[in-house]
């Protein structure tokens, strides 16, 4: 299944193959690993999906390879979740389009670590 959400009221629909600047929020430990502070942005060509965003993220920050998606299976690591626009997108198919607000840069794609105590 693919999901497509409508654009925000002041945004035009993004052309499907135009490179887009996508905002990504990373958890502290991955920001430290990548050597960045705050949000990062990545250029995504074509459809903006979990896979294309994470591919672009790993291309820009190779050190993040294997830390969000398991290297052997390419699946989301079990203690990480993906959010955007206040929705949990973790279990969406990796090639489903992300909300237009993410593709347009209005909202970030959020990688979140599961809460654990101790």
């Amino acid at each position, binding site marked *: 299944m693919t999901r497509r959400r409508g654009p925000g009221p002041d945004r035009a629909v993004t052309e499907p193959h135009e490179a887009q600047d996508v905002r990504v929020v990373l958890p*502290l*430990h*991955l920001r430290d*690993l990548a050597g960045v502070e705050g949000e990062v942005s990545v250029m995504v060509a074509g459809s903006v999906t979990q896979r294309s965003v994470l591919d672009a993220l790993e291309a820009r920050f190779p*050190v993040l390879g*294997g*830390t969000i998606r398991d*290297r*052997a299976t390419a699946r989301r690591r079990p*203690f990480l979740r993906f959010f955007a626009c206040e929705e949990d997108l973790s279990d969406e198919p990796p090639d489903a389009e992300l909300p237009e607000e993410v593709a347009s840069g209005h909202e970030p794609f959020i990688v979140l670590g599961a809460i654990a105590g101790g």
Partner: protein
Amino acid sequence: MSGVRLLVGTRKGAFVFTSDGSRRDWSTEGPHFAGWEIYHLKGSRADPDRIYASQSSPWFGQVVQRSDDGGRSWRAVGNAFSYEGKAGSHQWFDGTPHPWEFARVWHFEPSADDPDAVYAGVQDAAIFCSTDGGGSWKELPGLRGSETGSRWQPGAGGMAVHTILLDPADRRRLFVAISAAGVFRSDDGGETWRPKNKGLHSDILAEPEAEVGHCVHRIAQHPARPATLFMQKHWDVMRSDDAGESWIEVSGDLPSDFGFPIALHAHEPDTVYVVPITSDSVHYPPEGRLRVYRSRCGGGEWEPLARGLPEAHCYVDVLRDAMDVDHLDPGGVYFGTTGGQLYGSADGGDHWRAIAEHLPAVLSVEVQDLP
């Protein structure tokens, strides 16, 4: 030799302690990689400034860090550990087949003469090698794919290659130890492996003297006498004088022969150190007294070493990779605890001092002798 550097991996970061030859005062650097589990750090003997660190997290998986300046700065290198060919299966806790899945690096063993060459022992049990300073990793599949691999089972801590010994007398000979499979030896540079567990007896097994299945916690080898190996098994302290072909028990008069680490004095091949733990169900020292035990005759007869260590109400554990020795004279011994204490002795264990007391749980301690 001007000093000693201790590389300490903990549950929440890595620490580097440095002292001069007196080993009285220590400087502390860290935590490096704060918040991450650092299973192991180890420096190259060929270049002491080259250090490899295993950084891992249940959230973010495995990262390999490398330092080229003695631990002051680090950079992440390759973390792709892919099993060669079809991964196949080993046995799960209930005896059913379970696919081989990479979890983490437990142990690094750098080559004695090439800083860029390093072995990695991983969970699920396999050995990998890098020849480009950790940039890329290639499995030596003959270990996992050996005749008994499909029969191996994890222990409670997972199924990992936690010890790698590179024989100083024979560059083609390597030993590994796996919990809970046993000891394996290769005589052809890691291409093929054979189990070397004859003489081990484990009551927890359906066949107590089975070829594999023994929960070997640690093995140690002295460079001056490489055919002699010492082992701390789940229960039992063992010794082999024929490069693992056969083992005899040397637990002798230890108060408990359960424990995790085992280490050898740098200059005395018959001087062995262990840390007895109450039992497999009670992971703290007998009677709450933290004591290292030393044998000066290759096992069998042991003396408690307690001066400077907690004499009461001490309920910590000492993990398998958390004890090591230096090569100064007199030889030093060091170990870390799950309670976050790091102890050192500059006189072979006669007297101990706390080097640090409030670290996260210590997973590994490695000693580097500094030129």
